[in-house]
């Protein structure tokens, strides 16, 4: 017998609540998730959403949503506002110390809403 757990997408906020190329912090069932609204120049009007843990493992504080988004060779990273380490927004791996990484979360834009996938 197999059981399937259905995971749901949870509405977090409207896309327009996150100014372009900045981040916010969301409460996902008690976990702090940093969500970033990225809108590359060449895709004027087309937004992407990326979500990682809000907890900065170096500074040990919940601050990553307030960091600066950086781009290099089409890869996006978030630079911690405290000690400036950068984390890849796709893999969570720290640029300065590959042995450290932060969790990433599934996210999407749906009908103008930013959604995170419920953790089961």
């Amino acid at each position: 017998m197999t059981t399937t757990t259905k995971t749901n997408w949870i509405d977090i906020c409207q896309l327009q609540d996150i100014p372009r190329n900045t981040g916010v912090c969301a409460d996902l069932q008690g976990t702090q998730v940093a969500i970033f609204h990225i809108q590359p120049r060449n895709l004027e009007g087309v937004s992407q959403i990326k979500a990682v843990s809000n907890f900065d493992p170096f500074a040990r504080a919940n601050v990553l949503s307030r960091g600066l988004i950086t781009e290099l060779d089409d890869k996006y990273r978030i630079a911690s506002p405290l000690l400036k380490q950068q984390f890849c927004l796709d893999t969570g791996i720290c640029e300065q110390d590959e042995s450290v990484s932060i969790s990433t979360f599934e996210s999407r834009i749906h009908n103008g809403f930013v959604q995170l996938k419920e953790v089961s």
Partner: protein
Amino acid sequence: MAKQRIVVVGNGMVGHHFISQLHKSHSDEYEIITFCEESRLAYDRVMLTSYYTGNSADDLAMTTPEQYDEMGVKYYLNQEVISIDPQAKSVTSSGGDIISYDKLVLATGSYPFVPPVPGKDQEHIHVYRTLDDLDAIAESAKDSTVGVVIGGGLLGLEAANAIKQLGLKTHVVEFAPRLMAVQLDQGGGDLLRQKINTLGVEVHTEKNTKEIVAGETCKYRMNFADGSFLETDTIVFSAGIRPRDNLARAADLQLGERGGISINNQCQTSDADIYSIGECALWDNKIFGLVAPGYNMAKAAVSHITGGDKEFAGADMSTKLKLLGVEVASIGDAHANTPNSQTYSFIDTATGIYKKIVMDESGKILLGAVMVGDSSDYGQWLQMVLNKIELTHPPEYLLLPEAEGESGGSSAGIDALPDSAQICSCLDITKGELNEAVAAGATDISALKSCTGAGTGCGGCVPLVTQVMNAQLSKLGVSIDSSLCRHFKYSRTELYDIIRVKNIRSFNALLDDCGAGEGCEICKPAVGSMLASLWNEHVLEDELIGLQDTNDNFLGNMQKNGTYSIVPRIPGGEITPDHLILIGQVAKEYNLYTKITGGQRIDLFGAQIHQLPAIWKRFVDAGLETGHAYGKSLRTVKSCVGNTWCRYGVQDSTSMAILIEQRYRGIRSPHKVKMAVSGCARECAEAQSKDFGIIATDNGWNLYVCGNGGMRPRHADLFASDIDDATLLRYIDIIFMFYVRTADRLQRTSVWMESLEGGLDYLKEVVMEDKLGINDELLAQMEHLIDTYQCEWKTTIETPEKLKRFSHYINSSKADDNIIFGTVRDQISPSEKALELATEL
């Protein structure tokens, strides 16, 4: 065939250098074993004192056990070699091991000499050589108030600096009539003594310590031969070093008359299979108490063992250092011992600079020099001595600061050096080797450092290495890459002009115009700052938010736990009782940690993101404004009370400070800008350590520019004297805007001015003579910025849209539950408990 076994006795700086050189060139051919009497593998003894100022033993380590394991080097820690049997070719260690060798290398260094003064073997009496010594001194310092260093040589003064840093009242006792007798002449020694005295370290020369007995006011009393005495709790002997040649002596190797293991140019001792290198070795009857000659010996020994022909050919003992913050240097024949040599000297007692040069008979070749208080010419002069470069001007030109420019700018000096000129003495790298590396693609200083090693020792040669690199780059026709980052192929100054001339208003528009990609942590804040300096829009405009670091973004400085600090502007440090009370009330209500800052104002710490608007509303309503403590912009204008209250004051410094703070508040610049105004020459506002410092005179104001404190303090330079209010403001307007327009990102005014070709004089020409014809434009720009000033917090509070971001969660009104405070001295403090909890997450 079995590998040859090399045993290295002593794992100090030189022993380790030998091992790493041998391993680098011939890693597979030798079995290397080293004995290390200390509990750690080699560490940087030259930087020993930095152990007290933040460097840990790990920071100082030159290698690690893991690295040695990986290299296949076998090491014995805490084990001394106690004898050598040259016939059996083996050594015996204190642990009882007997190890045979094919080649033996003695790198045992030296030990501090302690004169046989009665009473020397007591508690709290130390030497200064190893990390263990430093631990012991720090332990003694804990219950001491006075410390004495016996010996006023190079190491003694360094030790004095160290115990002063430990908070002891410090004395230096010297047997000779002057400090640093080996390196300095009487003039230099006297000036150094004066400078050190003003730092609060007392110097006693011509004192011969007779005995150390119990003291009355302190633990010990030192009685001197002349009948005087000194009381102290801690004593550090630094009376010279002696080569550790006891092993060699017992093995009947040839020693010098006064000790030291005799070696030839290949660094072999009298037994051809035993080498000796570093401070224990005696070459041509000389001991070399510096690390660079030791490294060269290590190279010569490696070369001989591996069949090469590199020889040790002596070493230059020129030195440059900073003792107790005073720059001191000596080059070549500093004492004018060369027959018929001529000396010239220059003394400026006002600024405390002493320089002496020794010329040959013809007056054309520099033989040696002494410098105290300013050693900026060291690199240049050393090269002139080593390479016997003929002067084109009379020798006095070298000494006169004004004439320096004419005697051939720095690059002309570099071009005059032959390829064989040694540029980095620590790692023995020549100009030719640097040029080759540059030609092979090492086109920036960090690449050049890592591929040649130059500049990775004491670091003193880095300016010269950079000059050589730049000269070579321009010779190769490579333009020096000044791109801001991967996204913009322009320098900050170029981008500033592009934005200004093309009237560009957003980051994306600039990327479209002349950039690539989407931006990074370097270009985003830099462009954000330039847009603000030019157009002065509110920093929380949607287009601008993503460019700023969090501080600008939430109008507060983020603290270690993610909370923010709040700093209202307190112009000139003047504040009404009502404002003081309000600040106190708000701090109490929100339970914020309160502290007076170093900038004459009040900082409230620990505010959470959702509390910021409400707190600021209280301040703004009462007429307080943002202090821009978070911005790369004007910070504070410190003031003294001036002639309103002070009996010495000659102008109203407080009013001037307030006027200036209000004039320049909020202006975004490449880095932060600080100012101060003092009411008379007593300088209570410390104006000469500021980007702009103003000191009242009987006739007006003296303007000082481009000073700063911080990591690399720089005294400001006098820009204009006795000027009136209007001229003062005009000058500051122009200099400030010229800085905004032409400085590099994150460059303080001090570094900026030093990087301007022509320096202060050029800046004067630009400002006073309008050399570039841009003053009207700069003044207009400044006027625009002054006119468009707004209190960023006031605007924010009045715009509900902007307040949305001031919440920890976008989808909940909860606060961050990871922020927990403890209590320290009756105020909140970021709790360690919170940090512990956080790690468990």
